């Protein structure tokens, strides 16, 4: 038991350690935690007002879908090992006398804790719902217990399949995991189009958990049959876990690069990018960087593109946009957008996705390219050109990717609205400039994503994007009521404002970049 606790404490300190690095990191961490919990609480309060409330089957469907998707996403992590291990653990714990099962158990508890910090809104959701409906504390507690049992089941399955994939890394293991994931995700199609199978009809553990929770909400009593079936799943998963956790996984483990989705420690990201580079880099050498052609700025822009392509920085963006594009295509029936309200919502979507591009690319730059800055800094005054060209590279990607998505998901939209084209330019410019300013002005710790620096790099480009978008959004709402002369005047003022603001931002980058730290 002592060893399990020792490993657990080490893991917790390693993961949450960066929060202690500064007061602002701690404060921001608490703010994010509280805001997640508050959102869950408010959602619980508001649920009885939604149309789903009147349809218990629909409610079971939604809850079961949520829990199934959660399990399916966890299985993606099991393809990457299922058990988390930092590099230091490989060096020191794996070479000590600790047994695999002891290590796996401490990791199970660690993942349970991390999950409740990063993905915590369910318990406040139940509290909110209990307060709204006047449910007794005991019933609310049983609901929480059912949910926690499901979470525990998810972790058991994820770890067991992860270990299986490590000790038996055959295609059939991966096919098995892929089949389970597909089975878990497929019924979610019923939310978009007609699909014969719905979650409430299927004997999934998520459905048993969802039915038990909804029954508790409606009748304030426990439906034993669903709890019994959920218990059978847990028992089976436990036996599987007990058997598989004896295997010596230490021979096969590599440092974990991702503890959870959207978890992006710089070191972990650098390892991930390095692996991508090792695998895909040699295939991209047909894209060559020729120093004998073009100006330095053009050369550096191309160099930034080559990095983004070779080290896999674009990969998460492509995945994100592909998923969103597919869902949009399925749900929107290719209808052209014309109304103002639809253009407004398109603008919101464009803003959010345009902001994501510089934000994700800036994070990958920070984890894998910042350390190479010594080459520029020791060779004379090229740092301004370097960041200007990086700005242009970000701007181009931030323009192309969201527009590609818009054109796929909302056909003809791009051609029908000049405002959207102008706003796209403003949004991409502002978010890219903010991303670069964040990289220059804020020091990023190497150790963890739980830090103020990482909070800023995610949110400042989004704020920049909305700064770029807000005048256009305001204009879309105000201008249609005015005569055409006013519209032109307004448009001229707006473009002037944006040009000046952007010019100021670029000048600030130029000024501050000379004091950048590596």
């Amino acid at each position, binding site marked *: 038991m002592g060893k399990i606790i020792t490993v657990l404490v080490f893991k917790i300190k390693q993961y949450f350690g960066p929060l202690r690095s500064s007061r602002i990191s701690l404060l921001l961490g608490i703010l994010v935690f509280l805001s997640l919990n508050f959102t869950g609480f408010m959602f619980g309060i508001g649920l009885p007002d939604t149309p789903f409330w009147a349809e218990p089957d629909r409610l079971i469907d939604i809850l079961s879908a949520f829990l199934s998707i959660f399990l399916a996403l966890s299985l993606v992590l099991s393809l990457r090992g299922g058990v988390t291990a930092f590099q230091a653990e490989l060096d020191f714990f794996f070479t000590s006398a600790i047994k695999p099962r002891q290590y796996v158990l401490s990791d199970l508890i660690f993942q349970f804790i991390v999950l409740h910090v990063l993905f915590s809104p369910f318990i406040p959701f139940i509290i909110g719902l209990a307060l709204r409906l006047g449910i007794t504390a005991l019933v609310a507690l049983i609901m929480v217990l059912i949910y926690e049992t499901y979470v525990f089941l998810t972790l058991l399955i994820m770890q067991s399949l992860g270990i299986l994939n490590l000790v038996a890394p055959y295609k059939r293991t991966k096919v098995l995991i892929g089949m389970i994931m597909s089975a878990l995700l497929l019924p979610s199609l019923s939310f978009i189009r007609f699909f014969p199978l719905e979650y409430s009809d299927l004997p999934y553990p998520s459905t048993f958990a969802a039915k038990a929770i909804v029954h508790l909400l409606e009748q304030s009593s426990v439906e034993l049959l669903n709890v019994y079936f959920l218990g059978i799943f847990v028992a089976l998963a436990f036996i599987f876990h007990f058997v598989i956790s004896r295997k010596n996984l230490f021979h096969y483990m590599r440092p974990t690069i991702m503890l959870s989705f959207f978890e992006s420690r710089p070191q972990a990201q650098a390892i991930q990018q390095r692996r991508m580079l090792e695998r895909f880099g040699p295939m991209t050498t047909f894209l060559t960087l020729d120093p004998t052609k073009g100006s330095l700025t053009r050369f550096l822009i191309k160099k930034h593109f080559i990095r983004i392509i070779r080290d896999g920085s674009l990969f998460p963006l492509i995945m994100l946009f592909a998923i969103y594009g597919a869902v949009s295509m399925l749900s929107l029936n290719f209808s052209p957008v014309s109304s103002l309200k639809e253009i407004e919502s398109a603008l919101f979507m464009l803003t959010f996705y345009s902001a994501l591009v510089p934000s994700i690319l800036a994070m990958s730059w920070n984890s894998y390219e910042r350390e*190479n800055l010594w080459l520029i800094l020791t060779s004379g005054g090229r740092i301004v050109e370097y960041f200007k060209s990086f700005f242009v590279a970000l701007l181009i990607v931030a323009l192309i990717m969201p527009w590609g998505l818009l054109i796929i998901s909302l056909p003809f939209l791009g051609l029908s609205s000049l405002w959207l084209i102008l706003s796209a330019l403003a949004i991409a410019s502002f978010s890219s400039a903010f991303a670069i300013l964040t990289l220059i002005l804020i020091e990023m710790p190497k150790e963890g994503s739980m830090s103020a620096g990482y909070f800023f790099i995610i949110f400042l480009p989004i704020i920049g994007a909305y700064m770029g978008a807000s005048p256009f959004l305001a204009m879309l709402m105000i201008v249609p009521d005015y005569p055409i002369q006013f519209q032109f005047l307004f448009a001229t003022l707006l473009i002037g404002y944006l040009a000046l603001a952007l010019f100021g931002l670029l000048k600030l980058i130029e000024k501050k970049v000379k004091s950048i730290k590596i």
Partner: protein
Amino acid sequence: MSAFDFPILEVLNLWKSYNGHQAVKGLDLEVKKGEIFGLLGPNGAGKTTTLKIIVGLLKMDKGIVKVDGVDISEEQYGYKKQIGYLPENPTLPEYLTAEEFLGYVAKIRDIPSNDIKDRTNYYLELFDLKKRKKDIIVSFSRGMKQKLALSAALIHKPSLLILDEPLIGIDPTGQHHIKSILKEMIKENRSVLVSTHMIDTAERLCDRVGIINNGRNVASGSLEKLRRIAEMGEDSTLEQIFLKLTQEAEEVVEEKPMRRRLFSLFRKKE
């Protein structure tokens, strides 16, 4: 003073602290044209900090650093054309091929476009990397990366080459090869500043050696001069001299930085 003796690098009364810890305490250093100067000191002596200040990666708290007579506090960028730098653990853009990487460095070093290919090929051949020039750096061994980083430091033919522990990770044949390249370099009246804690490297490679400990000078000069300072016999090795001098320096009562600063202020006024 002949042109040959004119220092390519002068460091005078250099001070640098990090988070309250005084890493460099009034260090003086001089590297002449056409010599290999070794900066020798134990771990934490302030060698890397000093080099980082010279190449412009760190800002000094106080002192004067001149490269070929140019004060780097006044002319912060232009002087870098004169220097080539190899850090202790060079990180390279692993997503580029060896050829692209050297081309990239050549481009930011303002080498004329029509020269870039020739120079790139020359250094790839010199360091036996030509066969791998189309491979991306991520597939290279540590020694190969070190050779590539050294090529990058040399590609613009710097007057002063600054090397921080350059031979770590390189096999004996490679080490011998690098030493001969550096010896060739000084024949062209160019200079090398090597920071190392490998005493045999300093003994065999360097014309003069500066020993530093706890951020300050202990002694500097040729091996003969150091023997005299340490009052040791003719057959004494650099290792013995180093151990004696650093031990003696440890015994000297610590001088407080503030006092030293005050003295230097007086000296300036005079």
